Structures are given as structure tokens and as C-alpha cells.
């Protein structure tokens, strides 16, 4: 029925061909600079092959029929790879390996995120691992451009804070319902403080800011409490003022802000060069490899936006940046119909983080904001950053209900995108207390109306006996009205669900219980 409307067939094969053509064209410019560079040819060929392998397997064996995010990821990774290759051959190989690693992380995360029960189990270990990683980072760290955020293991330098970004969202979104209890709130706050504090000690203020921003998104989406958020903001601002007051060296780091032209060959060197060369590039760019910004320190990492403006043109650079806005809009949209609050929060936090990081990067290098030295997702050179970018993409894709089609289809025939029957959290083993408590539907106005509630009810008794066998067909309301004992048989329920579903596109409850309690306080329930 609405299946066809919702999954309008888009020819993703054609899309992949266009992407490949674009990448072939741009990489040719780099490969045949002077004489044909076979090494680069191999790197690009391998990269394009990897894209097609992913596409082939995902579309033919995993039932994937939407590739919006992957297309963006492939396209941007390819642009970053081409920029790296245009500067230095050896960058390209490392970058291509990073993209592949990122793709593996993407697939791995998608597999994990499919199972919310596993997510819940992994929550604490991941939190401890993240804090532990940052602690190790602090111990082993070496100074690199004023920040301590790098560790070198067996010749590879990695930036643990990039990986912790993924853990931060993972843990933050997964402890959704737990926030209601003071204990779990405290735990999560401690986790956040640990992360942000460690980053401050590393003097990686940019990443600390990103973490803080992400925390704000997660905390607000979970609680909706404007006062608490305002309080946290005020506290953070006060903390920042205190730091600047007592540690003038910190403030000195930002003294260049808005004074870059006075220190044109000193602290303002990077920003002034970005502005000069970006403007030199004009709207259409000077051509790949024809820029002068590449000679400036960190040109392929922090300053890559300037390189894009100069060589690829401002139009391309701004399209790329606007795409991050699109990704966030996409995340907000898929969050409305996703299976549970976990996915919604994770997607919005991941996309918000990505856009915020983009903002810090591009506004930092152009002196609209202070320079904090964060990377541009997907484009900047660097393995950790690339892995993080793909990981963030996995959070967004997991929220898209089309990502797990088999789960969706089998559960509710009358709704093509209906969620799977994953139950999370310990359930009471005692039959009498056994309740299937399902969070309320996302974007389901019907369910809020008292009049329609009666049709969307499910008794405990019936669930007890039929849950295992019929749960796949029967959506259950989060408003566990077991105590009310309203009798509504499952066939009736299904029928009514069909009728309302036809009218309003969505049916009744379709969320997954994450907490073992139903809705134990008034806030979750309306």
C-alpha cells in the first residue's frame, strides 16, 4: 500500500555511476599530473571498487534500497582523498585505508545498533572504555600543535577523542529512560564531565566544545527541560570565564581571534592564508592542484575548507558545507518515524555534532569564530576523524526505518516500516506482573487522543499468552493500561489499527520498551 509511496524506487545504481564518474574525473586530474602516477591510480581504483562492493552487497544481500548517506559519505571521502593525493602521494594511501576502516566501522555499528538489547548491554562497558581511552591518552600524550590529543601506537598516531565522540553519543542515547532517575543522571553527568575534563586537560578546546554541544542536544532531547539546560549553560560559561581568568594562557590562545591581519605571519597565519587563497579561488576555483594554500601548515587537515575554496571553487565548498545541513535535516526527519527514542536521539546528536564540528572548522579558519583546530568531517585528512565521521553516519542511518527492512516488514504487515520486536531491558519473569510496556509511537497523533486510546490498548493477560506468538502482528501501546483491564482482543485491535493506519499513515504504538518499568513517572507519559 503505502509501501510504494514511501519507498519510491530511486535508481541508486545510476547514482553510483554518477558518483564514480565524478570521482574518476577528479582523480584523473591528480593521477595524470605530469606523468601517470600508477600508485595513485591503484589507490583510486581500489577506493572506487570498495564503493561498488559495498553497494552491491548491501543492495543485493542486505535488502538495502536507500543510499543517501552512503552516497554523501563516498562522495565526500573521495573529495578528501583527491585533495590529499593532490598534495602528497603518501597521504592518499593512508587516507584510502582510513576510508575503508571508516566503512567497516559504519557497517559494524549498523549491525550493533540493529539490536537495541545489545546496545543496552554495551552501554556501561563503552562508557568505561571511552573514559579509559581518554585517560590513557592523557598519560601517553605528546604535544602536537599545542594540544595533547594524539597518541602514537606502533607508528600510527591516533586521536582517541574522535573515537570517544562515537561512544559519547552511544552512551548518551542509550541511557534514555534512565535519565529519569537521579542515579543514572549523575552517572551520565560524571561520564560527560570525565570526557570534557580530559579534553580540557589535553587543551583540545575545540573537541571539548563539540562534546559539550552534543551533551546539550542529548540532554535537551531527553529531558526537554529548558531550565536545566540553561543552568548547565550558565555553569559552563562561568567555568569558561574562571578558566580564562585564572589561566591567562588559555585566553592567549584565542587572542588572535579578530586580529589575524595584525599577526599575518604569526598566529594569524593560517586564517589569513585561508581567506586570501579562498578569495583567490573565486566561485569556480583554480583547479585541483593549482592552489597555493597547500604549502601552509595543516592545509589538508584543519584548513581543507580553504583548499576546497581555492582549488575546487567556493560553489563546491559551500555545497559540501550545506550538505551537512541537509544531513541534520534528514536526521530530524528520520527521527520522527524511527523505532525508539534511542535512535532518534542518536541520529540527531550525531548529525548535530557533525554540523557543529563543520561550523567550528569553517568559521574557525575564516576568523568568524576563534580557531580551534577541529577537522571537517569526511574531507579532512586523518584516520581517526574519518572513522568518527563514518561512525556518526551509522547513527543517522540506523534511525532510518528503511535500514532494517526485514525487521520492519515482518512485524506489522499493515505498516511497511513497522518496528521489530526487540525488547530491551530485563523483563519480569513473574507471569502476573509481566507487562509489555512499549514506548509511545513517534509522530503518532492518534495515540495521544483519549478517544483512540481504547482501540490501541492491550491487556496484560492477552499479552502474556499471545505476546510470543502474535507480537509480530500486534502493536502494543506504551500506555500500558493493564491495570484498567480493558478488554480488547488482538484481532479487533489489529483491525482497528489497520483502519486508523490507513487514514493516518501511522498506527498505534510502535516503540520499543527500553526500560523495564512501564512509565513510572509522569514525565514520560502525557
Amino acid at each position, binding site marked *: 500500500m503505502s509501501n510504494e509511496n514511501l519507498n519510491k524506487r530511486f535508481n541508486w545504481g545510476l547514482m553510483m555511476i554518477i558518483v564514480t564518474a565524478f570521482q574518476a574525473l577528479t582523480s584523473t586530474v591528480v593521477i595524470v599530473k605530469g606523468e601517470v602516477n600508477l600508485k595513485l591510480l591503484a589507490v583510486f581504483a581500489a577506493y572506487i571498487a570498495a564503493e561498488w562492493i559495498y553497494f552491491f552487497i548491501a543492495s543485493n544481500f542486505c535488502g538495502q534500497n536507500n543510499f543517501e548517506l552512503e552516497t554523501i559519505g563516498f562522495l565526500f571521502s573521495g573529495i578528501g582523498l583527491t585533495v590529499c593525493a593532490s598534495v602528497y602521494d603518501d597521504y592518499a594511501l593512508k587516507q584510502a585505508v582510513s576510508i575503508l576502516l571508516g566503512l567497516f566501522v559504519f557497517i559494524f555499528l549498523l549491525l550493533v545498533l540493529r539490536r537495541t538489547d545489545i546496545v543496552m548491554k554495551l552501554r556501561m562497558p563503552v562508557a568505561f572504555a571511552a573514559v579509559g581511552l581518554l585517560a590513557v591518552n592523557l598519560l601517553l600524550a605528546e604535544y602536537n600543535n599545542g594540544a595533547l590529543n594524539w597518541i602514537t601506537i606502533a607508528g600510527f598516531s591516533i586521536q582517541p577523542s574522535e573515537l570517544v565522540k562515537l561512544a559519547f553519543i552511544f552512551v548518551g542515547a542509550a541511557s534514555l529512560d534512565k535519565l529519569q532517575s537521579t542515579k543514572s543522571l549523575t552517572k551520565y553527568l560524571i561520564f560527560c564531565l570525565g570526557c570534557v575534563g580530559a579534553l580540557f586537560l589535553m587543551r583540545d578546546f575545540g573537541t571539548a566544545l563539540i562534546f559539550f554541544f552534543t551533551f546539550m542536544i542529548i540532554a535537551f532531547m531527553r529531558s526537554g527541560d529548558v531550565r536545566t539546560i540553561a543552568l548547565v549553560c550558565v555553569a559552563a560559561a562561568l567555568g569558561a570565564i574562571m578558566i580564562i581568568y585564572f589561566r591567562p594562557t588559555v585566553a592567549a590562545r584565542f587572542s588572535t581571534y579578530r586580529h589575524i591581519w595584525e599577526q599575518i605571519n604569526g598566529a594569524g597565519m593560517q586564517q589569513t592564508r585561508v581567506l586570501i587563497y579562498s578569495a583567490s579561488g573565486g566561485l569556480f576555483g583554480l583547479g585541483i592542484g593549482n592552489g597555493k594554500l597547500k604549502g601552509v601548515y595543516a592545509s589538508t587537515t584543519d584548513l581543507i575548507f580553504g583548499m576546497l575554496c581555492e582549488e575546487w571553487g567556493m560553489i563546491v565548498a559551500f555545497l559540501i558545507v550545506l550538505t551537512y545541513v541537509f544531513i541534520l535535516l534528514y536526521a530530524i526527519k528520520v527521527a520522527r518515524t524511527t523505532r525508539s527514542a534511542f535512535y532518534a536521539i542518536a541520529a540527531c546528536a550525531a548529525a548535530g555534532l557533525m554540523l557543529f564540528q563543520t561550523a567550528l572548522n569553517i568559521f574557525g579558519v575564516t576568523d568568524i569564530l576563534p580557531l580551534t583546530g577541529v577537522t571537517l568531517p569526511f574531507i579532512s585528512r586523518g584516520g581517526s576523524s574519518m572513522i568518527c565521521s563514518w561512525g556518526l553516519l551509522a547513527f543517522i542511518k540506523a534511525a532510518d526505518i528503511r535500514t532494517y527492512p526485514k525487521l520492519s516488514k515482518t512485524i506489522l504487515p499493515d505498516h511497511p516500516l513497522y518496528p521489530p520486536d526487540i525488547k530491551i531491558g530485563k523483563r519480569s519473569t513473574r507471569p502476573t506482573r509481566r507487562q509489555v510496556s512499549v514506548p*509511545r509511537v513517534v509522530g503518532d497523533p492518534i495515540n495521544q487522543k483519549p478517544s483512540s486510546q481504547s482501540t490501541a490498548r492491550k491487556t496484560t493477560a492477552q499479552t502474556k499468552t499471545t505476546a510470543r506468538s502474535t507480537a509480530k502482528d500486534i502493536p502494543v501501546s506504551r500506555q500500558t493500561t493493564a491495570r484498567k483491564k480493558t478488554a480488547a482482543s488482538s484481532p479487533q485491535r489489529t483491525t482497528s489499527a489497520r483502519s486508523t493506519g490507513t487514514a493516518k499513515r501511522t498506527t498505534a504504538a510502535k516503540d520499543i520498551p527500553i526500560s523495564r518499568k512501564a512509565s513510572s513517572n509522569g514525565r514520560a507519559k502525557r
Partner: protein
Amino acid sequence: MNNTTKRAYVLYAFILAFMVGLGIMVWSFYTNGGEWTSNLVNKHIYSNGQIANAGAVYDCNGIALAFSEDGVRKYHKSETVRKATLHAVGDQSSFIATGVQSIYSSRLSGYDFVNGVYNLKKYNRGNDINLTLDSEICKVAYNAMNGRKGTIGVYNYKTGEIVCMVSAPTYDPINKPKNMDGNEKYEGVYLNRFLSGVYTPGSTFKVITAICALQNIPDIEDRTFTCTGKYHTDSGDVICNSTHGTVSFERAFNRSCNSAFAQLAIELGREKLMTTAGQLGFGAKDYMGEIPITKSSFDVSNTKDVDLGWAGIGQYTTLVNPCQMLTIMGAIANGGVAVKPYFVKDIISPSGEITVEGETEQSGLITLDKAVADRMRELMRSNVVNYYSDSSFPGLKMCGKTGTAQIDDGEPHSWFVGFSIDPETPYAVVCVAENSGSGLSGAGKIVNKVMQAICK
């Protein structure tokens, strides 16, 4: 869950903020791009801090004064021409801030918002700039200055084209002297004295006082003044250069009688003098194209009478910019219509597109009555005929006023301002020769040499 996703809408606020940031970025690129790209560190245009690739600068006869060849900036082959046109053309490292190579560097590099410096890379040259200057006249003027500091500017008061603009001291841009810093000989060498210098006007300011008198005293032509070698006020004496006895207004102007003009200034009063000065462009910021012109200043509010008297004859704190004075001359010569001087004619892109930069344009800052202007022209003609003598300017029909500006230390600055009333050669001229004594013997001789070269 409903709430959760509803709350996602706060992210729209963030997106909005992001878009605002992007808007600011685009706007700053749009407005500042030219300035940014013409920065010395831009390796597309400069190498080692010197212009390497840029368009050429031509004089009015199409002679290249500066151009790029194989990534090297080159100049006219004659050293004298290079020195004479240095302040107009500018150097390759932007020390001379008002030079074309500094002010128009983004045009020379061919920068525009849409293409960036792509055209420069593609054609290996940027836009060319045509000046109205005549390098040969500038050469004559530079030689006539004969090592003295100062400036000379000549412009066509009908069209506004500056044909000669020389500022000294100067130097050779391809062979820059090393010992310029702190060297008295090169004092203010980077300054184009014509556009950016201000001088005590001396007696040339009597032109302004006379204009004020013509505007405000109806029977001025019938008045007589008595000069006893000084003019006495309660607060002190204004000393005259000579004892002129009883003189008419015209004769007082001819002889540049300080007593008469100090008396006139005090009679006219502070308000009227300042009004006239304001109408002639004093105290107003002006631009020649994109080049800022230092403003002249005349402020006699809260002065004692004796200072007002001194101000009326061009001493006291009054400072005049030579270009400003030249425009006033143009206004007098042209029947009250002040045409703005310019020296950047047009810009030609590599593809042949012509952007007109300088056009005949009336100055909005100078207003002068035609009747007053015509009478002033007669008075200034009378100066030459009756006092300086036409033999000082053989073959020319010059009008003028000399000035000998007393300065705190050293010889006075020598001024000559004037114009030719020959309709064939409608040129106005201003010349300041520093520390060169009296007006006619210093600046007057330089002006004669330059005007002879122009009018031959």
C-alpha cells in the same frame, strides 16, 4: 518519544545560526575579497613580497610605466621617469600606499569575486591600467624640482585629467636605496605629497580670503587699505613683507599685502571665513577614485584677533593639501565649476573589457559663484600682468598667486598656484617647493618649465 522528536526542532535554531554564519562568510568574501587577495603574502600575485604577476600601468601615450614579464615586475627604462612617476605608479611592495600598484592591486591582479585570480593564472596577466599622466611632462617636472622636496601637479580644469603629478623626494623602484630610514634626504619619501601632504599655504590663502571678501563686502573694489609695514591689533601685530602705503583691493592682492588682508580677515570675521573655506572644500574628506586625499584644515574659531589676521594671510594653523588647492584653482579658472582631478583613466581586462575609472566630474565639495570666480580670475591675471610679469611665463597666458609660507624652522616653503586662461591649454597648476624661499623665484620657475613643456 513524541516529545523527544519534537525537541529535535531546536536543532532548526542551530541550523539557522549556521546559515547566518555562512551568510556572514559569503558577505565578507564578497566585500573584502579584493583586499585579501591583494595582500603581499598571496603567492598567486606576489613572490617574495613583490608583485610578480599583474597587469601593466600605461601613461596617456601608451608608454608602459610598470609591467610584468616572466614573473618579474619591470618599470620604464628611464631612471628619471621611474623616479618621476613613482608616487603615481607605486612600488611593488606597497610602501607607497596611494600608488596605483597598491590601491588598484586587486584590479591589476585581475581579481573578481566570481573568478578569483583565475584570469591572472590563465592569461598570465591581470587588468591593465591607463593613466592620464604624461611621463615626459612628469620627467620635466622632476628635473625642474632639481632635488628640492615638494610637489607639482597640473590638471586640465575642463576635463579633470591630471597630466603631471610629481612628488619629491622619490627613489628608483628597481634600485631602492638602502639607507632611506631616518635619512633626512628621504624624509616622507613614501608619501605622495600631492595627495597626502598638507602645507601651510602662506599667501596663496589670500585667494580664499579674497573670495570671502568678494562674497561678503559689496563695495570691496572701492575700498582702500593703508599698509604701514604691519597691521596692529589689540592682541599683537601682523607683519607685512613691505610698506605698501595706501592700496586698492586689487593692488593689495597683486602685492600680496599682509596688512590689507589681515584687516580684511578680521573685518570679515571668523564665521564668514570659515564658511567660505568650507564651501571651498576645507575640512571635508575627499577621494580621487579609491585614493584618499588628505583633508585641508582651516579653523579660526576661538582665536585672538591677531591669529585671525595671520590665518587670513595663510599662516597660523591652516594647512592645505596641494590637490585641494589645485581643484580650487580649477574652479576659479572654469567659471566656478570645480572639476575633480583624476589620474586613473580606465582599466582594461585581458579580454579587452574596458572599465572607465576616471571621468569628468564636478566636485561636490566646492561651490563657487560664477561672478566671484570670474572676478578672481581677473585678479589673478592681474597678478601676473602687473606684478610677476608675463615674461616670467613667456608665451603663456597665466594667472596665478605666489605664496611664501613661513614655517617654524628653516627657509619658507615656496608656493605657486595658478592656471592658464588660454582656451587651447586649459591647465591649472599647483607647486610647492619646500625651503625654497619666495614664491616666484622658487615654485614659479618650476611651474614655468612644466607649463612650457605642456603648452608647446
